[in-house]
């Protein structure tokens, strides 16, 4: 082995703590990169093949009822490749708190649009009427087995269906009933696929459909095609036209995939950038330390290049070691992450594949960063002239610091604190590096816990502030006042209030949008119209209250008029309504109106299609059991049930999230603080050893370094909080969609957690340095002038 190579390995061994810390940051960076990029790619690939293989439709139109003859016309629209009319209906199960969506499929398996994957059991048998295939997760969560009988109520009539299979569909990769539900509740809501014949009979829709899905040649042309479809179906009561990218499941999946890409970029850059910084401090210190040696080597005839290469090589080796660990960790993390996705997303298979090109790429990126980190030190090393090396280094020069102008404070400070103050200002670069590390780390903590805060906040906003009812009954059609009185008379019901939800096409000039208008009582106690500032907005006597998103899309403001075209039922007459208010809301596509005013628009003195109940505590379930098969009741929702299963799902993810956040923020904080401290320890070992000689204890000597870290850490934390908040703000903006606005809400708890964790991380780094302070050899250090 060449002597220079030998020295390289000795150096690595000697600085193994620091070298390992560098490798750890590189490990985090590559692990992040590999994990996020391969999960991203796996997800993208899985999704695209899944969509293609099972023919996920490019568009979906929901309507009142159209005869099958219209399907021909739709298919003949230029650009349309294929259409399928089907029957889709929300139903109640005979099990409390469970609702389902009936979706019809061809009687015989024939690869239709929005096909299903039969995961267990079989497809419907020839001519069988009452068979059902249940969405897999729903079946699992409720312990249904093949052969079980499922009782449902459709259109006021009860049916018994035999479960013949469990299935998945590209339409329901993420199974959420409505955007407001936010997270899937696999136990409470499932898809029931039934044969076309059954659906037609049960809903009295023979040779008709209420939902059509279609594929097109060119998705770019969708707008024009949908307009043509509308012309065809105009008289059949369209109430929603949905492009694939706006479909709930598809848009959630697309958002997630986009988020992964962004995260991959951010996390990789942050980690590897930090590793470059740590390498930079480590090497700068090393070159300064080895000046004499470098000079000597050059005097012996080593070239500048070989000296520079020596230091670059050092960082490349550390980086390579980190990379190898990162490959393993990245793939393990990818596996874990896919498991988490598997919980939310229902893909027929989620591959955890190793992509060699990603591995190669990550190695390349890591090496690039390592190279950048070592560049300045190597250049400095190559510039050292043999003669320079023999000249002693410039002495450290003491400076007064700003703090000293605060006379009374300065006088009261012990010399330890004076030393710390002057040190921080003396080695400003290192101090800022420390602070920077803590800033990034606390920013990550805040960002991580912020996403949990957001979900929890939304839950309490939705379920405590906005929706105060215990039970919500949905009716199959519009009802009169009598339904309200009847609801109020149910045993254990304290209060009943009406609700009217009706879909309209809202128009302003050529701009239009399908919107569900919610009619509510003006002084109702169970539903409040809330804006994002948690203020209750009065719905008024007449006029529309629009969410900001809708108002922007339609280009209307307060006082403007919009045209309302009912999208359902017998009423087809268009009306105009004035916009009375525009409110900022988390869920985008809603509009509100006084229930009486909305009823009048529908040509009725009073109409309602849902009742909100306030019940005696604990009686919600028995009430819902009673109502399940009442006539005209299409769904009964119990709030506590909904909350419970949401909390379950969220709880599981909190653990995974917290683990990931802790690891990353911890490694980042630790490796920076540890390295910076060791470098400053090495630089000051003479000072510190002479303190020991004077009779300072290990703890007293250590506390100078420890407290210095706490001071820089505090600065880092103070910067980290606004930094974290800025990231959160950016996240909120990045993830804002038509459907949903993320709340910018950071719980005070998150700041406390960030502070506590930062202190813990610094304490751990300090503890790791402790050994080195104990190992200070007074005799040795004081003997030689370095």
């Amino acid at each position, binding site marked *: 082995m060449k002597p220079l190579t030998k020295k390289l390995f000795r150096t690595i061994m000697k600085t193994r703590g620091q070298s390992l810390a560098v490798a750890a940051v590189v490990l985090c960076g590559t692990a992040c990169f590999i994990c996020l990029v391969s999960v991203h790619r796996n997800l993208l690939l899985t999704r695209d093949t899944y969509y293609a293989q099972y023919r996920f439709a490019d568009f979906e139109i929901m309507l009142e009822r159209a005869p099958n003859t219209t399907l021909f016309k739709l298919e003949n629209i230029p650009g349309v490749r294929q259409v399928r009319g089907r029957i889709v209906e929300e139903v109640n199960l005979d099990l409390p708190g469970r609702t389902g969506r009936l979706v019809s499929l061809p009687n015989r398996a024939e690869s239709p649009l929005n096909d299903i994957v039969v995961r267990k059991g079989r497809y419907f048998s020839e001519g069988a009427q009452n068979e059902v295939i249940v969405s897999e997760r729903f079946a699992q969560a409720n312990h249904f087995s093949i052969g079980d009988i499922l009782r449902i109520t459709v259109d006021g009539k009860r049916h018994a269906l035999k479960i013949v299979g469990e299935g998945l569909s590209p339409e329901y990769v993420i199974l959420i009933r409505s955007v407001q539900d936010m997270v899937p509740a696999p136990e409470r809501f499932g898809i029931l696929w039934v044969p076309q014949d059954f659906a037609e009979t049960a809903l009295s829709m023979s040779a008709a459909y209420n939902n059509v899905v279609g594929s097109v040649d060119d998705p770019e042309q969708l707008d024009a095609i949908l307009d043509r479809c509308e012309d065809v179906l105009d008289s059949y009561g369209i109430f929603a036209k949905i492009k694939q990218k706006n479909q709930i499941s598809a848009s959630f999946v697309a958002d997630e995939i986009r988020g992964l890409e962004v995260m991959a970029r951010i996390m990789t850059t942050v980690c590897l950038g930090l590793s470059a910084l740590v390498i930079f401090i480590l090497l700068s210190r090393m070159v300064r330390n080895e000046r004499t040696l470098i000079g000597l080597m050059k005097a012996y005839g080593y070239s500048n290049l070989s000296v520079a290469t020596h230091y670059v090589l050092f960082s490349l080796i550390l980086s390579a070691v980190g990379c190898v660990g990162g490959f393993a960790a990245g793939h393990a993390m990818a596996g874990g992450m896919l498991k988490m996705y598997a919980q939310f997303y229902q893909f027929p298979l989620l591959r955890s594949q190793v992509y060699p090109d990603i591995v190669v790429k990550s190695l390349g990126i890591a090496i690039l960063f390592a190279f950048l980190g070592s560049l300045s030190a190597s250049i400095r090393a190559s510039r050292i002239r043999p003669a320079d090396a023999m000249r002693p280094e410039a002495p*450290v020069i003491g*400076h007064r610091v700003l703090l000293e102008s605060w006379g009374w404070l300065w006088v009261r400070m012990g010399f330890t604190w004076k030393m710390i103050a002057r040190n921080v200002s003396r080695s400003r670069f290192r101090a800022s590096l420390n602070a920077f590390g803590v800033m990034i780390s606390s920013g990550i903590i805040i960002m991580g816990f912020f996403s949990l805060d957001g979900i929890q906040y939304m839950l309490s906003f939705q379920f405590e502030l906005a929706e105060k009812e215990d039970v919500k009954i949905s009716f199959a059609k519009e009802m009169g006042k009598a339904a309200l009185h009847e609801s109020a008379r149910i045993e254990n019901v304290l209060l009943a209030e009406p609700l009217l939800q009706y879909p309209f096409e809202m128009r302003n000039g050529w701009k239009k949008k399908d919107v569900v208008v919610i009619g509510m009582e003006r002084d109702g106690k169970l539903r409040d119209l809330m804006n994002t500032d948690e203020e209750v907005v009065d719905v008024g006597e007449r006029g529309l209250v629009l969410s900001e998103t809708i108002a922007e899309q339609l280009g209307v403001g307060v006082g403007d008029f919009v045209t309302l075209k009912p999208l359902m039922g017998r009423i087809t007459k268009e009306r105009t309504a004035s916009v009375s208010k525009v409110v900022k809301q988390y869920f985008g596509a809603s509009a509100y109106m006084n229930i009486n005013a909305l009823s009048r628009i529908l040509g009725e003195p009073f109409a309602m299609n849902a009742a909100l109940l306030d019940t005696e505590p604990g009686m919600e379930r028995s009430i819902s059991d009673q109502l399940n098969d009442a006539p005209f009741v299409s769904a009964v929702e119990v709030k506590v049930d909904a909350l419970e299963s949401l909390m379950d799902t969220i709880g599981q993810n909190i653990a995974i999230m917290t683990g990931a956040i802790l690891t990353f923020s911890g490694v980042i904080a630790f490796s920076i603080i540890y390295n910076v401290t060791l470098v400053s320890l090495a630089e000051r070992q003479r000072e510190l050893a002479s303190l020991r000689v004077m009779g300072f204890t290990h703890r007293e000597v250590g506390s100078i370094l420890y407290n210095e870290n706490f001071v820089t850490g505090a600065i880092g934390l103070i910067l980290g909080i606004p930094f974290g908040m800025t990231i959160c703000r950016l996240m909120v903006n990045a993830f804002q969609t038509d459907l949903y606005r993320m709340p910018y809400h950071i719980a005070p708890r998150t700041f406390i957690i960030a502070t506590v964790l930062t202190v813990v991380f610094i304490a751990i780094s300090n503890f790791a340095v402790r050994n080195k302070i104990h190992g200070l050899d007074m005799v040795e250090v004081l003997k030689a002038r370095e």
Partner: protein
Amino acid sequence: MAVASNPSAGTRGAPIFRIDSLVKEYAMGEVTVSALRGVSLEVKQGEFLVILGPSGSGKSTLLNIVGGLDAPTSGDVWFRDENLSAFNERQFTLYRRNHIGFIFQFYNLMPNLTAKENVEMATEISVNPIDPVEALALVELTDRADHFPSQLSGGEQQRVAIARAIAKRPEILLCDEPTGALDVATGKIVLNALRAVNERVDTTVLLITHNASIGGLGDRIIRMRDGGIRTIIENKRRLSVDEVEW
């Protein structure tokens, strides 16, 4: 046992150290280097002891062991009635803290503390310290109190180091070539300061030097060679610093 800080304990002439067959060996792989080969010596309170000897003869090793920086391979060092060989790390620290002042050839001042603050650093951990201003006055540096080390000359820095060492009122000052890096004139100022401390505060001084003529300052002159004491000369008439020629 506890190492009590008791600066007034003992009177001039009473034994303060008893060093008994001290051996220090360094194992260097196959070979063993003997730095001290059975050194015995008694030191009295208030004594000014000069240690001479060629390079490598074990002077620093002896001083470091006496000062509690290093432990001997065998043999005992009695400080009054306490045996240093039985000390643990913490007791060594307390011993140095309460009884010992060190001065080295290199000043080892904290570069980012002023002269006065460097002295305060020592007084802060001491039970019965001299006022830092007074300590600086003893080495005639009152007017440089607010200067940083980089603004002081070598001799001035060494005097700050002395002020720092004596501010704790140590009973023993251990000086390893304090004038080694200084010119004659500056060296004399430093030696004067040491002498002043020895005479006024009764501090025992052990001083290592390569310079035989400095020997005249001491009460006794010890010559070391090959890890052992060769001769001990009683100096009947201590010279003043101005009388020393080198």
